């Protein structure tokens, strides 16, 4: 009743969370802590990229071709105003990386959100309705999984680019990347959610809920879905890492973000040609950022898997 005045009686939500099992294992795991810190730093820096970046990498007026391929500030010939040097067009690499990482993270998160929504819906329907619907959905999922996402994405994007021309394509590239990565990977979620639904459906409380007259939608969302939270969580972490890699790969092939609005993949791609002439930084620095970003997400995913230890669908 008077919990505010007596914090010893009623521990706050925050301290409860702090003392939970998960938080305990988190504090005990330096790798997870460091990963989260690095991820948070990258995330917030890119979130506030417009405030941090010294130049606007999308504004061609801000870069000067005369200042192209300047090495990073710490090496010979570097200039203090370009910490990480400039790329082949004279664009400040540091600003480009901040904006590029922002795009990479956005695409990763948005694509995974789309995957999750699609997959969870399909999984719930397949598991709950069962029968014919279930077997058709799962067969489609099987077939879709047997075609790799990257393959489907490459072909789809290559053809759209050829059909609509690169001008139009570049304009909508970001949405297309989210859509294609998002749609191609729904079976992962669908299978896991379906498995939980099948396991939970047999349990008494679901029968009880049905007897009490709750509709199937309510039963699924309120009763069954919470049981798949931990596997969904674990899958999502890995999927974000994979989506970022997919986006980078597609952009590297010229099927993703255009050079005028580069993501990490397009930056690496634009620098690749200069690696032989000694301008290593244009490729290497965005490459390192990409690897660190994906690595910390994967490390967090590994830790989550160890802690939550969910039954993931295999095969």
């Amino acid at each position, binding site marked *: 009743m008077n919990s505010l005045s007596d914090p010893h009686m009623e521990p706050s939500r925050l301290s409860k969370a702090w003392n939970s099992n998960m938080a305990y294992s988190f504090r005990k795991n330096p790798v997870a802590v460091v990963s989260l810190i690095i991820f948070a730093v990258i995330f917030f820096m890119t979130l506030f990229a417009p405030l941090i970046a010294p130049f606007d990498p999308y504004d061609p007026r801000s870069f000067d071709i005369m200042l192209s391929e300047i090495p990073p500030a710490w090496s010979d010939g570097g200039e203090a105003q370009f910490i990480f040097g400039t790329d082949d067009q004279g664009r400040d690499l540091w600003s480009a990386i901040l904006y590029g990482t922002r795009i990479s993270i956005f695409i990763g998160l948005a694509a995974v959100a789309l995957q999750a929504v699609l997959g969870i819906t399909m999984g719930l329907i397949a598991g709950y309705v069962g029968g014919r619907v279930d077997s058709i959905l799962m067969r489609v999922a099987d077939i879709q999984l*047997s*075609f790799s*996402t990257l393959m489907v994405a490459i072909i789809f994007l290559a053809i759209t680019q*050829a059909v609509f021309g690169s001008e139009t394509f570049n304009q909508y590239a970001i949405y297309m990347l989210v859509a294609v990565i998002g749609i191609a990977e729904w079976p992962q979620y669908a299978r896991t959610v379906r498995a939980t639904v099948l396991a939970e459906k047999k349990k008494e409380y679901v029968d009880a809920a049905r007897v009490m007259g709750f509709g199937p939608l309510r039963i699924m969302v309120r009763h069954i879905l919470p049981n798949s939270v931990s596997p969904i969580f674990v899958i999502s972490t890995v999927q974000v890492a994979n989506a970022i890699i997919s986006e*980078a790969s597609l952009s*590297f092939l010229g099927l993703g973000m255009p050079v005028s609005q580069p993501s990490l993949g397009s930056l690496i791609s634009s620098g690749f040609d200069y690696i032989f002439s000694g301008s290593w930084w244009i490729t290497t620095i965005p490459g390192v950022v990409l690897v660190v970003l994906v690595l910390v997400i*994967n490390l967090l995913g590994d830790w989550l898997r160890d802690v939550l230890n969910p039954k993931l669908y295999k095969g």
Partner: protein
Amino acid sequence: MFAYLVKRLFQAAAVMFVISLISFAIQDNLGDPLRELVGQSVSEETRDELRDELGLNDPFLVQYGRFLGNAVRGDLGTSYFFKEPALTVILKKLPATLELVAGATIIIIGLSIPLGVYTAIKPNSIMSRLIMGISIVGISVPVFLTAIGMIFLFSVELRWLPSFGRGDTVDVIGYWSTNFLTLDGWQHILLPSVALASIMLPLFIRLIRSEMMETLQSEYVRYAYAKGIAPRRIWFVHALKNTLLPVITVGGVQIGTMVAYTILTETVFQWPGMGFMFLEAVNRVDTPLIVAYLIVVGFIFVVTNTIVDLIYGLVNPTVKLSRMGA
């Protein structure tokens, strides 16, 4: 067994049907065959006549039927750029890609099984921690970055290995010329294969490790210990056989991913395979070649998946093939 086979083939045919529909739709919408045939100077009337002659004004189904008939006979149109039958162009490029995949597969199988088993048996050893640590970095580095990194290190800085092309190859039979018969060929295929294997290898090590650890917890492994069976036999006969069953299924799926990664690897190393060719074809809007690539890759997917499923059915005694078909 027979019923299962029929069912599996039917499914494969259904997938191929969908792929052919997509391919046809692409051919229908992408590029104008007349442009390639006659150029700009011909009048609209003659164009229409030509259209009729070529059957471009026929109903959709008739056109699709013709496309399908031609495809089955191996006629996938003529490449605009190469002025050669598209299928021939692809078949010439196919061996390079398949050899690259073969090289990567050898690396993956050769390393993932021993490393996966080792890390499962001795999960707490320093060596295992090191392998697992490297493997998580491995899955975090995109294939094209590994490729670039290796080129930078081994070709640009150390100048040990070539950075592009296939080098000296030896003709074997038909369009197949191989890298594996000359030293130069080996030197050229080494970096691309390693790059292609780089993301799949850690994935397989982790998969084999976790499956193996689960198997080692099983009751029948404990029973084998209770019978006084030597650990070596328990690991490599009792546990490994059960471990590899799910790995085979996942492996089948990963073959598809590997074909996709050949596009990346071939682009970085300018490897004259069909992945590199595909991207070029896209840039040139060489529709017949794009369509042919799609169909050939789809075919490879379907065939490998079917084979993997059959192998799984044959290797796993508890899967009755009749039941698998259901």
